[in-house]
């Protein structure tokens, strides 16, 4: 299995193409089995991954345009491995819980294509390949929102597409400039990200390039003030769309931050810590407050996603192994938790065709099992210890504490404000008496929903109690990343701010 990564990337796409000839009746089983095989393949990847080796593994190189140094170059390390597993896992779980009736075939095929692009983004190590998958991922999502969405779906889909597309074009310019500078410096064309990592640029170049990359990634994250596409996209997307959007697509942005600008421009990253942190803080506090004001359950969760992504960005810019490991882990946990929350909202939407909190109340009486899972997930989202989110949030904030005391306190308000909006959501819809007649006879979770959701609950708790199998490979890669950045940094401040592991710190 030398080509496991290529298989992972292209298997869903080929299966999706074949899906066109599968009959309508068996398409669900077909989609499920493809997603399951893909997930098993990614598990296989995980188990044969050497967690103690920090560099890239399962590397595949195939020249595409040799004269410009563009290669089909894949590989995973501890940072990307789990996001790949997350993508396949969420696709599988989403497929299990899929409740779409209309054009099921098209939906499943788009999901499989989406899976290809997601995996592709996380495993590609060539900037052009990365960019291609990055942009391709927009297309199935555009289709999913536009075809199965709510009333404003066209507006939302186009906004989503154009906004993120505009951002990535800026990133593309950054990539081209980077390639040009690489050519100037070495005389060779190369789009390999690992090669780019080795290029040391003067600080002012770094800053401009950093900004170019950052804007592209920030829109995807989405950072304040580029976040407004997200509530629309979530508000209008069908459940499965929201799940994948929140769980995986947003992670592309933060993953990109760790993979591209940080190791490429360590000095600029340090230089930009302050503005980025301010944006993240605004994002954390402001969107948490906005989330509190929402009337629609899904919007609350959409805004809460933004707020949590702020913590992830903050952790990334902690520039120490604790923070970056934490933020990568938080990406995973946020993927699982927010995915589950969107799925939960989808459950009630399927039954009542509304998501307004004022329409509910007392659901815990009617749907106790649903209420339980929602409760667990709300608590996980709030960041209670022994759930996945706590590990990520704790490490991210702990890491950033080294950078700034005050800003961490401000960022820490996310644990308060998170509790405020999440608990009031839970209170408004689940507590109290059942007031609406329509709500009195709602069905509790059915088999496929329970199965999907309990899986997510299990993962949340398992990795909250015993995060080691995931945390260790991440940490290994992150530690080598941080010490690499430390070595590469040219300015004095950057050397000081980027703190590799304690042992190395003392050795100096």
């Amino acid at each position, binding site marked *: 299995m030398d080509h496991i990564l290529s298989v992972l990337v292209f298997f869903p796409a080929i299966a999706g193409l074949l899906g066109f000839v599968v009959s309508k009746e068996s398409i669900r089983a077909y989609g499920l089995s493809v997603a399951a095989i893909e997930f098993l393949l990614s598990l296989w990847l995980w188990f044969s991954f050497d967690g103690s080796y920090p560099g890239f593994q399962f590397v595949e190189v195939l020249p595409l345009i040799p004269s410009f140094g563009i290669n089909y170059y894949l590989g995973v390390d501890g940072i990307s491995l789990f996001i790949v597993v997350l993508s396949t896992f969420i696709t599988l779980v989403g497929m299990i819980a899929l409740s779409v009736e209309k054009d099921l075939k098209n939906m499943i095929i788009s999901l499989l294509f989406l899976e290809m692009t997601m995996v592709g983004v996380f495993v590609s190590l060539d900037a052009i390949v990365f960019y291609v998958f990055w942009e391709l991922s927009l297309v199935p999502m555009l289709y999913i929102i536009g075809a199965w969405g709510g009333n404003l779906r066209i507006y939302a889909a186009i*906004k989503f597409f154009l906004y993120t597309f505009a951002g990535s074009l800026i990133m593309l310019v950054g990539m081209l400039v980077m390639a040009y500078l690489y050519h100037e410096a070495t005389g060779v064309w190369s789009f390999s990200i690992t090669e780019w990592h080795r290029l040391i640029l003067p600080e002012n170049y770094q800053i401009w390039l950093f900004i170019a990359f950052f804007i592209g990634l920030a829109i995807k994250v989405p950072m304040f003030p580029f976040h407004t596409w997200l509530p629309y996209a979530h508000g209008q997307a069908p459940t499965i769309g929201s799940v994948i959007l929140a769980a995986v697509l947003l992670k592309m942005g933060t993953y990109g931050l760790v993979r591209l600008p940080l190791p490429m421009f360590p000095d600029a990253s340090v230089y930009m810590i302050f503005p980025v942190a301010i944006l993240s803080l605004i994002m954390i506090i402001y969107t948490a407050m906005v989330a509190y004001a929402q009337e629609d359950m899904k919007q609350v969760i959409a805004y809460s996603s933004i707020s949590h992504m702020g913590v992830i960005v903050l952790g990334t810019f902690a520039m120490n192994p604790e923070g970056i490991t934490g933020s990568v882990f938080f990406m995973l946990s946020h993927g699982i938790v927010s995915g589950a929350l969107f799925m939960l909202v989808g459950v009630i939407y399927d039954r009542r065709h509304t998501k307004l909190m004022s329409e509910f109340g007392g659901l815990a009486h009617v749907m106790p099992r649903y209420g339980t899972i929602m409760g667990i997930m709300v608590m996980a989202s709030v960041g209670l210890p022994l759930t996945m989110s706590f590990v990520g949030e704790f490490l991210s904030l702990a890491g950033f504490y080294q950078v700034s005391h005050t800003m961490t306190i401000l960022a820490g308000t996310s644990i308060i404000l998170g509790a405020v909006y999440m608990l009031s959501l839970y209170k408004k819809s689940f507590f109290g008496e059942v007031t609406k007649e329509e709500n009195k006879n709602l069905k509790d979770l059915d088999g496929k929903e329970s199965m999907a959701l309990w899986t997510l609950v299990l993962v949340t708790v398992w990795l909250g109690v015993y995060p080691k199998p995931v945390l260790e490979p991440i940490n290994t890669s992150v530690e080598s990343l941080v010490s690499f950045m430390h070595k590469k940094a040219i300015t004095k401040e950057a050397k000081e701010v980027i703190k590799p592991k304690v042992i190395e710190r003392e050795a100096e």
Partner: protein
Amino acid sequence: METYLYTALFAPLVGSLFAALFADKPKNLVTGIATSTLLFVSWISSVVLLLHVAHGEEVHVKLMDWIHAGGLVIPFGFIVDQVTATMMFVVTTVSAVVHVYSIGYMDHDKSFNRFFAWLSAFVFSMMVLVMSDNFAGLFIGWEGVGLCSWALIGFWYHKESASWAANEAFIMNRIADLGMLIGIFLIYWNFGSLQYDVVFEQVADKDHGLLMMVTAFLFIGAMGKSAQFPLHTWLADAMEGPTPVSALIHAATMVTAGVYLVIRANPLYSVVPEVSLFVASLGAFVAMFAASMALVNRDLKRIIAYSTLSQLGYMFVAAGVGAYWVALFHLMTHAFFKALLFLGAGNVMHAMDDELDIFKMGGLAKKMQWTMILMTIASVALAGIYPFAGFFSKDKILEAAFATDHYVLWTILWITAGLTAFYSFRLVMLVFFGEERYKIFGYHPHEAYRFMLWAMAPLAVLAVIAGFFEHSFVHMIEHVLPVEEHHISTFTFWTLIIVTQAIALGGIGFAVWKYSKGGFSKKWEETFIYQLLFNQYYIPKIYDEYICKPYGELSRIFWKDLDLKIVDATVDFIATTIYKSGMVSRVVQSGNLSNMLRWMGVGLLILLLAAIFYSPVR
């Protein structure tokens, strides 16, 4: 010993998970019995551990690594030393009693199974809290008890007030938890570890300012959990939960976690007198402040809740003046008699169909003799009359305050002791004696189940005799906590005891005299002081008016005005500008070939101009 440790820790978890299996099924007595049995097992293990560590040994185990990232290593490590063993004993004793009691109390509730699941989960979290050997583990328990408290306060979630109170409690605790989290970060980045032993070893070499920060932030955490001013409002509202919950969580165990934290971190606190003084002062303030609110309240459970607050204040004074073992001792005795008091109140509520207004009761002694006796024992113990448990611990606190020259604190506590005695007996008098007002409202009180009373008996016994274990307690605890001999003369010592006893007895006497005559007149209720106290110094209103509402309002402004009208509108503006420019320039696309050809000509002209004047090839 490891086996006992794990048994003590995980037995409640097993019970909780077992009960959770039946959570949405109708009442099943097995859940109650199973969880109680498992708690009993846990209690036995705790007692074994207590006896084991009584002679200065420690049990320290590491279950596994939890988080390992960068230099941060957090194991699931558990330590049982004398402090922990005491706490474990308190927690398991009270919770075993409460479990058995709840079988009777929750008899008719349809969510019987769910109740036991949460109750046992709470005990597990509390055990994690007290047994962890590092700050992160403590934080797990800390949040865990918060979660269980949320679920149990909001147990009757169909009531708006209950779910509101649950959220209030959780959010207030979260505010404090942030402080604690920051404290933990500070510890990690400066001490390089979160293990208690590693941290406490390095205290001597650390900067004073840093230690002040650490202790201050940790204390913010403690303030939330122990409901100290200004985060105290949730405790009174938490009385919406079932009464056994109030007994276990909001009297005996969870709220004392803050005190436990200060005691546990005593190596830190003992080197920063500034923060310690603040702790003591806040404690004294809260003691008096809460007692004053308890004086006039009409709600049975709220009175006891305020008294809990007040007693927590006492504990903080003890911890603040450096008498950590006294704080722990008072924590223990208080747990027994306060739990007893709450369970007694539970009996009363049960008898009165969940009526809480003490002015609608009275003369219940005839119908509920045993409850009356138990509650009186608890009240006497609370008032601190010799030879009940409260006397020993409370007197020690006063003595410690006096001996460390904190005369102001002493005076406050002394007055509070009088107030405590007064309101405890006001409660007893109004509920159990005097006119039988309940008849007007048509209640038919009855005594609680026999086994519930039996379940309360151990607590009653402990409330009476716990004080006599003072010396063996000191002997045991001195292995881990500093036990200082206060150098005060015998004369002062006895004077203090007499003065304190006098004011306590005076308080009791006044209450008995006043309320046997029918209580205060109506006029008193119209005075400003009464109104102020009755409305809890208007603090909940202030919070509501100046924090909750503006927050909601601001959120709405952020959403409707800022997010939709400015941020999003800017984006849309850019989009519409481009769109409109398209609309404007579509005139060019008139569809008239001739016009288009002319435009082409213009383009050609421009290109030619560019070619001539900006040619790259010269």
